[in-house]
């Protein structure tokens, strides 16, 4: 009968041997060798296989939008895979419609690079850069909304189209064990070169907003990717209706600065939906816009004016205000920014008023 120690050692040795076997197996079976990624039939890059397409592209400084950091829960990272992506995975199914599936659109965070792969991405993504910035100031707009001003350091200029957004990197901190990217629209004037401003509303337990509100100080470095997005003014002379509440004002403010820049003569109305008087902000800036743009009107809409207050502006839901003022909006274009629920409700009101769907533009932030 061999001693207890020896018998434990023997069994442990067998366990260790098996573990080593597994390490060896991983090195051989999961070694995909060198693979080549071809982007838009032009840019080629070689790398070790085994990573996700999203990570591979990020490493090559091609920044595909992603809000969930590669977990397959946001659906932002779509790319067109022409060849070599393997079969469609069940984790991608919920985010792709039939047309997309037929065109070979995939979620780049779910596609694993195992062999040579050819992809197509929108040209403008190739001009997305990573910007190292410094926080140049934080302004409190309401009890839960702040305006952040970032100075671009490297590169020190960003060429963006008003209406576009950036992805802010929230690094690891106390309660957040991993980096995440979150998208925020640029709210500043494009002529304010070398700086970008964002309007952010605090989300309870939100990873990025907690970082921005509680950890980022003036003078701290911060990293953003951008610019992204298709939300922008059209070139037509049609009158416009803007609908955005809370931090959704960011891209609208940027559009308004742009309209001042190009001396836009188009008629525009902005319905700014808030709950109570204390949620209202940027009123002076909006009044300044009304002076600089003679055909622009600003309508804050209070959902719940306090008892006995002297509010004589619009009240109720912002969608009701739109319906009241524009029962017929068939000649207008609409620019919306806000929660999916608000956007869906507004789209319903606008289409009921005769606006065709192609004339409604929006940036859905959940």
């Amino acid at each position, binding site marked *: *009968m*061999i001693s207890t120690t020896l018998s434990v050692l*023997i*069994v442990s040795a*067998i366990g260790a041997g*098996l*573990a080593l076997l*597994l390490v060896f197996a991983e090195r051989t079976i999961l070694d995909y060798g060198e693979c080549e990624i071809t982007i838009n039939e032009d840019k080629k890059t070689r790398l070790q296989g085994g990573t996700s397409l999203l990570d591979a592209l990020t490493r090559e400084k091609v920044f595909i939008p992603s809000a969930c950091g590669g977990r397959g829960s946001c659906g932002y990272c779509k790319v067109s895979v022409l060849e070599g992506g*393997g079969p469609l995975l069940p984790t991608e199914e919920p985010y792709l419609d039939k047309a997309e599936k037929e065109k070979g659109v995939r979620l780049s965070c779910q596609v694993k690079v195992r062999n040579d792969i050819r992809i197509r991405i929108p040209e403008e993504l190739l001009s997305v850069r990573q910007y190292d910035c410094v926080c140049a100031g934080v302004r409190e707009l309401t009890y839960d909304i702040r305006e952040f001003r970032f100075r671009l350091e490297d590169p020190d200029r960003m060429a963006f189209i008003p209406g576009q957004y950036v992805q802010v990197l929230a690094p690891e901190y106390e309660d957040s064990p991993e980096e995440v990217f979150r998208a925020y629209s640029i709210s500043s004037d494009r002529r304010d070169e070398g700086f970008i401003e964002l309007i952010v509303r605090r989300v309870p337990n939100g990873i990025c907003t907690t970082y921005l509100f509680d950890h980022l100080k003036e003078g701290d470095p911060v990293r953003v990717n951008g610019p992204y997005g298709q939300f922008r003014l059209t070139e037509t002379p049609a009158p416009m209706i803007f609908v955005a509440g809370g931090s959704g004002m960011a891209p609208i403010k940027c559009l308004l600065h742009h309209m001042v820049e190009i001396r836009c003569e188009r008629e525009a109305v902005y319905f700014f939906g808030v709950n109570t008087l204390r949620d209202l902000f940027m009123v002076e800036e909006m009044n300044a816009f009304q002076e600089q743009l003679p055909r622009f009107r600003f309508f804050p809409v209070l959902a719940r004016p306090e008892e006995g207050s002297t509010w004589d502006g619009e009240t109720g839901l912002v969608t009701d205000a739109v319906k009241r003022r524009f029962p017929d909006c068939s000649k207008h274009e609409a620019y919306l920014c806000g929660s999916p629920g608000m956007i869906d409700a507004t789209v319903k009101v606008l289409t009921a008023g005769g606006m065709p769907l192609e004339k409604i533009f929006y940036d859905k932030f959940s």
Partner: protein
Amino acid sequence: MNMTAELWQMVVVCFSAVFTGNILLTTFLGMCPFLAVSREVRAATGLGIAVVFVMSFTTLLNWLVYRYVLVPLELEFFRFILFIIIIATFVQFVEMVLERFSPVLYQNLGIFLPLITVNCAILGASLFMVIREYTFTVTVGYGFGSGVGWMLAITAMAGIRQKMAVARIPRGLQGPGITLIVAGLMALAFIGFTGVLQGR
């Protein structure tokens, strides 16, 4: 035991492992993935094949380790720990192979692949093999037969559940309720195979 008798015993044991002594329907081992993955025939078959593979090879590996390591060193009592370690390693290996060669099946099985490790049917087959003192040849048939039996049960259940999806099941019985009733009925049906072939 001579060659023919041993081979015949292997066939008998294999048959009984699939039908009369079905590891799932007779000894009720491996019920968790059975209830969870039996909704769709395709996923059930995929998991079933993985289990056949794992069960066949782990029973053989465990037989070798038991006979050539544990018995000589009189460490038979270690079999519980060692069998599980070997099963876990093997399943990890299967996972890697699947990820490389069939990413769709790998994603479809998802969490259920590593859960094969703690499938008590896998450990159960190895332990039965020890208790019943099967020889190597017979273990070949037993491991494979148990796996096939388990796969047969889960695939049949998946087929039945897919048909049941359009039936009107009373609210209280929907899901696990009716599944367990069906499992019981299947077990009853399999008892009908007893005595078809003489042997254990």
